């Protein structure tokens, strides 16, 4: 068991059936993420980035291959074990609509907390540069929303942060700010997808995904 690896894909394939046709979203994808690294997966639309993130986040199950999170084989987990592993080890950031509209900023961040800790939630919000905790999502900009989603993804000290096109709705300056915020957080293991090539320079490892096949760059 490789305990150093936070996330390991071993020959993972994902096949969808659409209109009686088999569509290969991912084909024999293998990679491993080390603790504390920022990783980017880029690729054109339809390359399989979303499928890869959903598989890594245990939202979907692979058709073939093995996915390990912190050395735990996730293939044979039942629904509750899967949910508990997500809660304990994985944080998600999506492209948009990350927050529940009827909860304020602080409540949104505290929602997934296993142990209620207001101080920690405020600390995380301060770290990402959000100081007004009583605002609601309707009053926030996309950048603020993404930063709050980042803070929320960190509340349970997860081993892995999965970010699905988090900068997709941000302009260049907002994107740079968001990436800088990611870099400020020490010790996180991040797997982010984006089709924005200039972002590659900010990441330790980048992968290119095309037609379901992953290449390390």
């Amino acid at each position, binding site marked *: 068991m490789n305990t150093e690896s936070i996330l390991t894909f071993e020959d993972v394939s994902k096949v969808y059936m659409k209109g009686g046709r088999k569509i290969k979203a991912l084909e024999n994808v293998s990679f491993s993420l080390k603790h504390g690294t920022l990783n980017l997966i880029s690729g054109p639309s339809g390359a399989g980035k979303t499928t890869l993130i*959903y598989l890594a*986040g245990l*939202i*979907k199950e692979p058709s073939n291959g093995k996915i390990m999170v912190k050395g735990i084989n996730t293939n044979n987990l039942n*629904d*509750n074990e899967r*949910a*508990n*592993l*997500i*809660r*304990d080890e*994985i944080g*998600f950031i*999506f492209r948009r*609509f*990350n927050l*529940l*509209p*009827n*909860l304020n900023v602080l*409540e949104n961040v*505290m*929602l*997934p*907390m296993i142990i*209620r800790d207001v101080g920690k939630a405020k600390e995380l919000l301060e770290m990402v540069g959000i100081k007004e905790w009583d605002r609601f999502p309707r009053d926030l900009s996309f950048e603020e929303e993404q930063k709050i989603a980042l803070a*929320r993804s960190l509340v*349970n000290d997860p081993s892995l942060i999965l970010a699905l096109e988090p900068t997709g709705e941000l302009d260049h300056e907002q994107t740079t700010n968001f990436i800088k915020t990611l870099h400020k957080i020490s010790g996180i293991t991040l797997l982010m997808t984006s089709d924005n090539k200039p972002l590659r320079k900010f990441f330790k490892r980048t992968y290119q995904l095309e037609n379901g096949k992953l290449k390390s760059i």
Partner: protein
Amino acid sequence: MGIYILPLKNLRRNRLRNLSAVLRIALGVIILLILVSSGLGINSFIKNSGTSNGKILASPQSNQTVTTTNQTNMVSSLVNYLNSFFGSSITENQFLSRLEDLLVNLVYILDGVASVALLVGVLGIMNTMGFNLSDRKREIGLLKSMGFTKNQIFISCTLESGLLGLIGSIIGVIIGTLGIWIISTFLEPGFLTVLLPFWLIPGTVFITTILSLILGLYPAWFTSKIKVEEALCCEY
């Protein structure tokens, strides 16, 4: 913050839809209270008016009051009038026996109508929760991506329908009690009374809330089964 606080927070959303569900439940509760207490009043009237043979408005005995004498006179004249009108020849005792049967049946009918009224009011919960939850598909997906289990989401959604039922029943009980009090003041003392026993108030709130919880089970179960990837594709 936890997932179980969400039902309370979600009440602020879809206000018109939630308000309409709450009002329907309240109306059902008001009708239930009025009909059940009228039934209880009729029962009590039958018992209080009965003599040793259990018949209502029986012939006056030596120690009975002038009011009873007046009532007996009223019954005699009513029976005479009915006999002359229909050409029948029923006695006072036969008339009173039939009246008693009618009143007992009326109590059952009132209880039945009350139950249907409450059920119709509470059935709206299913509809309201179905719409509320289908509007929130993406949020359910988000909750699942945070690691909340199917059961936690199921319980949270069921609690929301229970909460709607609880609020509706409390409003209904308040308005219904006031209504019964107003009706009672207009009724002649000693004649038909409307009874509101204490147990009826918490009993109604309890039954309505439990019914709402039960009716909320299906939309909650349906919602908790949503696949995350499908839910996350939805827009608000």
